[in-house]
């Protein structure tokens, strides 16, 4: 459960200040999958960072209702953020190593995750030897490694091709359904938002504010068929319309 109350964020002071986020309210229940869409620079990353506790809100309050106190959230950063001195496997197992998971258990988990994101054969590659998409997939695997109750993902699939993306979308849905995680996912693809989310938050630009939150009334589990259903197509259309509007 995440309760966002009147959270706003202003960077800088005085004349040079930028209002990244106007006061924003949102309640996110346990096990919900929230997709966030909005124009570039509208404060999506900022919102996620505030929820993760990386940025303090200028005003307002965030309440995380999670029992997993030590490491409440997993985070996929917009730009991967891999430790350059660690290999793919090393990066993925980093959250495990730092929370004292036994070596053996970690090894198994890493192997599983490498396969999930399709990086078999690159376990021992260093980040500088990876393509953009491969870095991003490593970061996704890392965020999943220690099974956080809340998963915050900032455009996790932006650098991967359509096929991989669809595969990862389905994997994410599967994991979500199996574990009941609460997920916040920022994306630029309204199709993705509609396909994955239980709710879609549409934000508008400068100062970033929540325009509307859509409840997605598509049946679960979602499959390829979902993408051809009239409800889905309607929602996508509506979201696109909304976005075009939001941008003005």
């Amino acid at each position: 459960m995440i309760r966002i109350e009147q959270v706003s964020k202003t960077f800088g002071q005085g004349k040079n200040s930028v209002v990244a986020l106007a006061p924003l309210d949102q309640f996110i229940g346990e096990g919900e999958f929230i997709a966030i869409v909005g124009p570039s620079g509208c404060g999506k990353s900022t919102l996620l960072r505030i929820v993760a506790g990386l940025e303090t809100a200028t005003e307002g309050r965030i309440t995380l209702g999670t029992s997993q106190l030590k490491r409440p959230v997993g985070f996929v950063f917009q730009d991967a953020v891999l430790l350059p001195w660690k290999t793919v496997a090393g990066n993925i197992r980093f959250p495990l190593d730092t929370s004292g998971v036994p070596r053996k258990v970690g090894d198994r988990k890493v192997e599983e995750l490498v396969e999930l994101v399709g990086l078999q054969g690159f376990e021992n590659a260093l980040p500088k030897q990876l393509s953009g998409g491969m870095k991003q997939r490593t970061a996704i695997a890392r965020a999943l490694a220690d099974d956080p109750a809340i998963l915050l993902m900032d455009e996790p699939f932006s650098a991967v091709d359509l096929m991989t993306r669809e595969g990862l979308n389905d994997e994410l849905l599967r994991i979500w359904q199996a574990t009941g995680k609460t997920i916040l996912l920022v994306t630029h693809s309204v199709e993705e938002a509609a396909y994955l989310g239980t709710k879609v938050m549409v934000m508008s630009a400068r100062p970033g504010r929540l325009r509307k939150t859509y409840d997605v009334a598509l049946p679960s589990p979602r499959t390829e068929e979902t993408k051809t259903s009239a409800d889905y197509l309607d929602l996508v259309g509506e979201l696109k319309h909304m976005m075009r509007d939001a941008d003005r």
Partner: protein
Amino acid sequence: MFLRSLLGLAGFVALWGAAVPVFNIPSYLLPGPIEVFDRICFLFERAELAGHIQVTVLEIFWGFLLGTFTGIVSAIVFARIPVLLRIFTPLILLLQTVPKIAIAPLLLLWLGLGLAPKVVLVAIVSYFPVMTAMLSGLRYIDKSFTDLAGVLRLTPWQRFWHVELPSALPGLFAGATVASTLAMTAAVIGELMGANKGMGFMLATGQENADTATVIGMVILLAFLGWAFFSMLEYLRKRMEDRFS
């Protein structure tokens, strides 16, 4: 690498050997390599040079270790609590800039005549480059790494060991290299302020006696020591880099 250094060394010695007769340099200004070599052998045989070297090496070893350790630890503390940095900076600079010879009697008074004052002196001078480098490494650490550490709720120790140290490592090694050279100088200075052992003492003896061959001989031995020190640091650096990859 080793071969190349050896070649460079041979070239240097040859140049030196040639320059002395060619430019007719009197030996009280610059003795030739053979004379210096003879003098070193002589000192080994007759003046227990090996014992002197051992004393100096010990001073450098403990002092460098102490200085580096406090440098790293205090940099971490300073980075977390900037007020402390601002408060301690003047004192640290005072310690760094006080001419060691000027306060020698005070140091002896507090630390005695043995190894301790020299070790402390070496530690003081090694401290500063290491602390400065570490502090800079921590200050300019890639912000996204800090974010990662924040998300993973790393403990301070984990944060240091897994994120901050590896990031700061290149700068830290540069700092340690600088510190190593200063450490050697400090050991020698320490021995000038009241000693009867060590390479610095030997060197002062040579200086006092206008015995340029001994002075140059000591300088060369110290240089060798410095080279060994540097190679060790390089080795360590490679090992560390492996450890963190």
